[in-house]
């Protein structure tokens, strides 16, 4: 096992895995840079072996940036085994190329597709009720998922080796993602109602007017959501809806 100092260095390095992101090699240089403190410790003064390890990891790599942590952990575990002659030197590269596609897809769907929308909606809702606490709520909700994966992904990868695949599977991120989306939908409903009530309070137009405003806002949100699903871009929507409204506001 690598020392705590090397672990922390790799953990910090994982936050820079996309620093040199390029279309050709994507996170290749970032991955090699992040794992290098562990390789320095594993191979110590054996310069030839160490350089060979650097070269093995300086190759095309692309997955979701947070899901790189368990892969980094497994690569470190396998490099230690390769050093002891317990597995082939090519094993870490083989493992990387096997899992980067699926882990990219799982990470994109879970973190970008479910955790971030949940954090965003929770943050905006918190902004409506508690003003400046909104951004903090967003950061706490999102980074709860993010930092847990970075830390435990790396730790479990080093401990379990390729057994980390079973560990990630046991988290059932796709199902958790679906549950988070339902939670987001519920929060979005509250947000729509709260926005309608604050823009058109019952004290101004009566309860029925407010209820109609809520119903109208939910319908409009669902309709524009459907339009986005059908390929409408934000730019097009802005031109179609905002421009005439602003023009109307300026003229009249």
């Amino acid at each position, binding site marked *: 096992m690598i020392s705590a100092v090397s672990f922390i260095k790799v953990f910090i390095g994982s936050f820079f895995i996309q620093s*040199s992101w390029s279309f050709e090699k994507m996170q290749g240089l970032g991955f090699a840079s992040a794992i290098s403190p562990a390789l320095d410790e594993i191979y110590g003064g054996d310069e030839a072996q160490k350089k060979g390890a650097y070269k093995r990891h300086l190759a095309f790599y692309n997955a979701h940036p947070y899901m790189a942590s368990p892969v980094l952990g497994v690569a470190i575990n396998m490099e230690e085994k390769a050093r002891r002659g317990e597995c082939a030197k090519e094993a870490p590269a083989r493992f990387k190329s096997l899992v980067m596609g699926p882990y990219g897809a799982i990470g994109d769907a879970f973190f*970008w597709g479910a955790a971030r929308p949940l954090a965003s909606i929770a943050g905006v809702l918190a902004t409506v009720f508690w003003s400046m606490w909104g951004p903090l709520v*967003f950061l706490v909700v999102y980074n709860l998922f993010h930092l847990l994966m970075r830390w435990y992904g790396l730790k479990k990868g080093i401990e379990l080796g390729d057994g980390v695949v079973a560990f990630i599977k046991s988290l059932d991120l796709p199902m958790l993602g679906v549950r988070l989306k339902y939670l987001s939908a519920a929060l979005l409903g509250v947000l729509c109602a709260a926005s309608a*009530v604050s823009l058109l309070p019952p004290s101004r137009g009566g309860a029925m007017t407010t209820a109609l405003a*809520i119903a109208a806002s939910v319908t409009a949100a669902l309709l524009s959501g459907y339009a*986005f699903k059908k390929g409408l871009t934000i730019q097009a929507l802005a031109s179609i809806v905002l421009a005439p409204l602003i023009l109307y506001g*300026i003229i009249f």
Partner: protein
Amino acid sequence: MSAALNGAILVSVAGGVLSLDRTAAFQVMVSRPIVTAPVIGYLLGHPLWGLVAGAVLELLLIGDLPVGRYVPVHETALSALVTGITIVALEGMGAADGYAGLKSEMTVLPLAVLIALPVGKVFQKADIITRKMNARLFERAALSIDAGSAVLLRENLKGAVLFLITNTVALLVTAVPLMTGAEYVFTRFALKPFTAAFAALLLAGAGAAAWSITTGRSAYVFGASAAVAGALLTWLAL
């Protein structure tokens, strides 16, 4: 130097630094509009105006995901620019600070979004240029790998520096003319309060958010939750 020019430089530098979080470093999401806009607002002296802009933009840009080789809308630069234009315009109009100025912000914000959205292409282009330039860093690291791990760390971090420079320059090129222009226009022509465009922007944001979380029966959950929350909030407000 005018206040708008000072503000534009501040927006560009702060936006460039916050943009690092988007791809190059950390990714703790301080680059999202809901964080970037209030930070920019705070730097320009109006955090609440920044917060409102950030909340709306956060919803609007929720579904644009960086999957594979696709480079999404640059939400950090866009929110920095929208916040900058909004604040300069509101100051120009002489809007009251804080909550008292929110109605004026609802009038100006949609216009700032409408102006900034097409400019967003500049940031996307800058992002693509940086990613192309980064390919050279990989080649350089591969050539001098015999020098040890320091080369890997150095060349990797150079990528982050490149992102910082291109994002800051792209913001400078756009923020300076747009913010000084907004100052010039809004000190001469004040807009009448008009909140319909803001409501439309908010609804479009809710629609973008609804679309990004569509799964199974989520639309029913959304509708039911709005009905229950609406009834509760109306009862509380009466």
